[in-house]
């Protein structure tokens, strides 16, 4: 049956994707919710929480607040906190009950901005979509608001932004820094990472890039916006493994010159061979891993994607499956690479290789999440 899960976990939701995306940018994120969303996020979905003072708060909505629907209390409380803490911007994100009562987050954001003078983004999350949707929404809204449109791109090539970087996909194991270094070694000039390890000023200059590298589906929507607005193409893939990293670097140089987008994460053997390895996870990372394994070993791979994605990011043999009952027959046998919390639904004939993901198992296997950037697998 759809929507039921006897044992497997659930991915971080859009309400966690928003603060994860905006964590390092000096803003204040407010989850419009009764209780629980903020502690779920900062316990399971945010490895940076303990040591870093990013402002993520909860509105503390009550039954009567929801029945009466007046947003005055929310607006008042956000303004009060903003006036004390002086964030660079404010983001308000929704959960199921605000969705049900039709809260107009754009209007709320407009009122808050008028009263505080602080830029405010209203984000229509509802806890029913994955973190990719929330992070994507946040990155795009941030781009629309803060990327400087007055900067004109000088002639050049190889300036690149990395889009879609959150610990939900990459943990805090140095992957973001490895990507930056790999790009530099590949003759490219990293401008900014959206959004780990870069300052707001660096993100503001993203319009100067010649090409954008999308490392998660969470970054695709912002990449499309930057293309529409500044003309920079995007390349979709994570530089995993030595061979595939080389493919990606070449694709970035090519796109930088030609202006054409591409999705190397969707590269698969298309010879009709039954896939020997199934990789379960977010489409860009898993697809890149599949392409990397094939490039290094020749073994055929497919991606089983339980999350939002697009057809263009899916390679030959890849499929979508999110519900437990859809996944079980796909994981019956063969080699499976997936988060350990998928193991209980794999068949007895499966050879299981653990590849934890913060977005699925949270902090449980955090110490075991490998940094595969540019490394031989």
């Amino acid at each position: 049956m759809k929507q039921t899960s006897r044992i497997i976990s659930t991915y971080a939701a859009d309400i966690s994707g928003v603060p994860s995306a905006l964590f390092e940018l000096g803003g204040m994120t407010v989850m419009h919710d009764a209780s629980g969303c903020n502690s779920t996020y900062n316990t399971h979905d945010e490895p940076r929480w303990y040591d870093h003072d990013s402002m993520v708060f909860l509105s503390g909505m009550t039954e009567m607040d929801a029945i009466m629907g007046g947003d005055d209390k929310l607006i008042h409380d956000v303004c009060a906190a903003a006036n004390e803490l002086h964030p660079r911007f404010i983001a308000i994100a929704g959960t199921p009950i605000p969705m049900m009562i039709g809260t107009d987050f754009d209007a709320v954001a407009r009122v808050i901005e008028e009263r505080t003078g602080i830029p405010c983004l209203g984000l229509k999350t509802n806890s029913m979509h994955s973190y990719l949707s929330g992070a994507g929404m946040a990155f795009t809204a941030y781009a629309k608001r803060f990327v400087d449109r007055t900067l004109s791109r000088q002639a050049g090539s190889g300036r690149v932004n990395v889009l879609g970087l959150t610990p939900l996909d990459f943990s805090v194991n140095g992957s973001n820094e490895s990507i930056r270094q790999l790009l530099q070694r590949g003759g490219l000039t990293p401008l900014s990472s959206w959004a780990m390890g870069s300052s707001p000023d660096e993100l503001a200059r993203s319009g100067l890039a010649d090409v954008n590298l999308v490392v998660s589906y969470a970054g695709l929507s912002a990449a499309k916006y930057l293309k529409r607005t500044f003309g920079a193409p995007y390349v979709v893939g994570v530089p995993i493994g030595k061979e595939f990293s080389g493919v990606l670097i070449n694709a970035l140089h090519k796109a930088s010159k030609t202006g054409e987008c591409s999705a190397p994460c969707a590269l698969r053997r298309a010879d009709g061979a039954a896939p020997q390895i199934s990789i379960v996870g977010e489409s860009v990372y898993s697809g890149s891993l599949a392409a990397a394994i094939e490039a290094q070993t020749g073994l055929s791979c497919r991606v089983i994607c339980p999350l939002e994605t697009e057809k263009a990011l899916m390679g030959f043999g890849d499929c979508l499956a999110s519900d437990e009952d859809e996944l079980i027959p796909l994981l019956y046998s063969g080699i499976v690479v997936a988060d350990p919390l998928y193991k209980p639904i794999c068949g007895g004939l499966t050879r299981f290789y653990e590849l934890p993901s913060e977005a699925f198992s949270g902090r449980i296997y955090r110490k075991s999440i490998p940094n595969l950037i540019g490394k031989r697998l």
Partner: protein
Amino acid sequence: MLKRLGEKPDLTQTTVSVGEASYPAPFETGLEYAAPARGVWNIVHTGMLVPESHEIFICAAGCLRGVVLTAAEMGAAERFSTVAIRENNVLDGDMEELMIEGVTDILNKLQRTPRAVLVYTSCIHHFMSCDVTRCYAELRRRFPNVDFTDCYMDPIMRKSGLTPDQTMRSRLYSLLKPAPVDGMSVNIIGSDLQTYPDCELVQMVQQSGRTLREITACKSYDEYQLMATSYLNIAMYPAAKAGCEALCERLAHRCLYLPFIPDYDDIDRELELLAAALETNPPDASALRALADESLFKARAIVGDAPVAIDYTALSHPMELARLLINHGFNVTDLFLDSISTADRDAFLWLKRNYPSLRLHPTIHPEMRVYPRDERNTLAIGQKAAYFCGTCRFVNIVEDGGLHGYMGIIRLAELITDAFENPKDAKIEIQPKGLGCAGGCCL
């Protein structure tokens, strides 16, 4: 990478002296911050106390996230399942069918049918006015050998009646079936942690020839059902009181509310009440008081003048504890709490008169996000106090820690000494969820 903010922030919203504080809400409410102190139990941990039970949560994915991973972290994933509500359910209005068919689907897939199923519905069910009564009736018809009970993950209702914590501690005993009362057993109701066996309460019950039952000690569902044969139910934690009273009304048991109040007169009063209910005599209070004094003075000698901070998650009567420690010479400087309970009002007024400079701090005010956390010499009692003080000397305790009575005070003094002499890393110790839960928390 964002680090600690360089400027010292304005802390006016985060500190008020007890002399100036108002009751019961010393701080303004608004947006809420959540500190990374996670040891307090949640409704997943508490629900798992029913042996041979299975939990099924029916919520939006974002709401499921925290509870799914709670179960996984405590090694209880096999006893935990979910039904995810999606937008189409809200729009189509088939929430009740989703509940009935979803629970049915899960139960049909389990290798072994559980004795009891705790189904947790959510805020959305209230707002869509779902007829969950009808759903349970149908589920009971389909699974006549399973005991179902309605539980709730509905924090939006937390100011509309009982809090989610109170409700969970009540629902936990809703599965007890009426049984002949034998007069020879006594229950402790609604505590997450096993009661410290040396405390007077436990000793008095056992010395009266009776069996003491707690859900934390039940190894099987049948053993849990035996709790229905007890004639006396004792609630020892404030959030357990309402559930205990409801149980007593339903099963016609006697009810006693005997929380851990670290005050000698209150302890004596409670022991008298218990003795009357057991038809025995209370222990010799003067001897116990002397022992408690001795242990506190001994701890004080070791701790010296080090500042002491207490938070509300450690003990249910933090102001009473502050009063006790101050009266034994401790340098209590800070209390971390968001409100003052009626039970602590007396101690609050005493502190106001006698120790007005004691500082109170909220734990959820947004400014606490930038609280300096540089009081490293402080001895903290409680995880939030440990975090906000930035100290490595702390008593890692939640929800009264199973302590009670004079022996509870003596044990607390030992814990204070140990905390002072054996520093530990708060970042490691305070982040696992559900301190003391059976599975432990694998991290």
